[in-house]
């Protein structure tokens, strides 16, 4: 298995995530798409670490950090979703229309 396959999977995952982020009407759906994008990046890092720079672990370390970052973001994001859901009773992105122009 060459690096290309991993990169291909990662790229596809990124694109799928991107698609999800762009099209989901539900905030949580959007978040999930973004999580997929994060995973694509992590996969890239691990693959590069394995194939191109096997002498260190920097790639995996970055991936670890990114997992933590993702966790932090998702926490804030979900808290926001809940807060909004409480006040607006919706999680549909297009209904957030107080601000525009």
């Amino acid at each position, binding site marked *: 298995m060459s690096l290309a396959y991993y990169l291909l*999977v990662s790229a596809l995952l990124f694109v*799928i995530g991107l698609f*999800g982020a762009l099209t989901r009407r539900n905030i949580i759906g959007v978040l*999930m798409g973004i999580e997929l994008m994060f995973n694509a990046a992590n996969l890239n890092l691990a693959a590069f670490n394995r194939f191109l720079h096997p002498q260190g672990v920097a790639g995996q370390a970055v991936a670890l950090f990114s997992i933590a970052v993702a966790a932090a973001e998702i926490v*804030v994001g979900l808290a926001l979703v809940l807060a909004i859901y409480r006040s607006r009773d919706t999680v549909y992105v297009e209904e957030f229309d107080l601000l525009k122009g």
Partner: protein
Amino acid sequence: MSPYLFWPLAGVTLLSALGVVTLRNTMHSALLLGLSLAGVAGLYLSLGADFLFAAQLLVYVGGIALLILFVVMLSGRADEMRLRQTHSTWLAAVMVCGVVFFGLWRIVALARGVLAETRTAPTTAPLGVWLLGEMAVPFELITLVLVAALVGAVVFGLSPNGSVPEK
């Protein structure tokens, strides 16, 4: 690193990811997200990143995916389960994604035929050394990020009068 391990994992990952972004039922999406993340974890394993595999399972699959599931259940309304979940701009999104992939293809093409030259080794120990040595400052920094996130969760989670909401 056998193709027999790689292809099923890649298939599971990508197919469930597709499901995540296309299914109508958000609940199903959330479940498939867990599956997809698990697939990625498997791929880590196939790359010899054992610690990453564990972290992925613990934090992502066990933490994030679950959290998302909770929130979906908390915020979901029964009548919405069958609503169209895809935004009307999906065709544009497809085009954009296609173009992005076209660009990424250039990188993928570059990597064709690049094979691993070394054997895999356990990574936990070097990771620990790396994180607490060279990367100590970022490591500490991530705690600050998490603290901030916690504060955010508290601020948003508390009801306006400062008490925990009943709902």
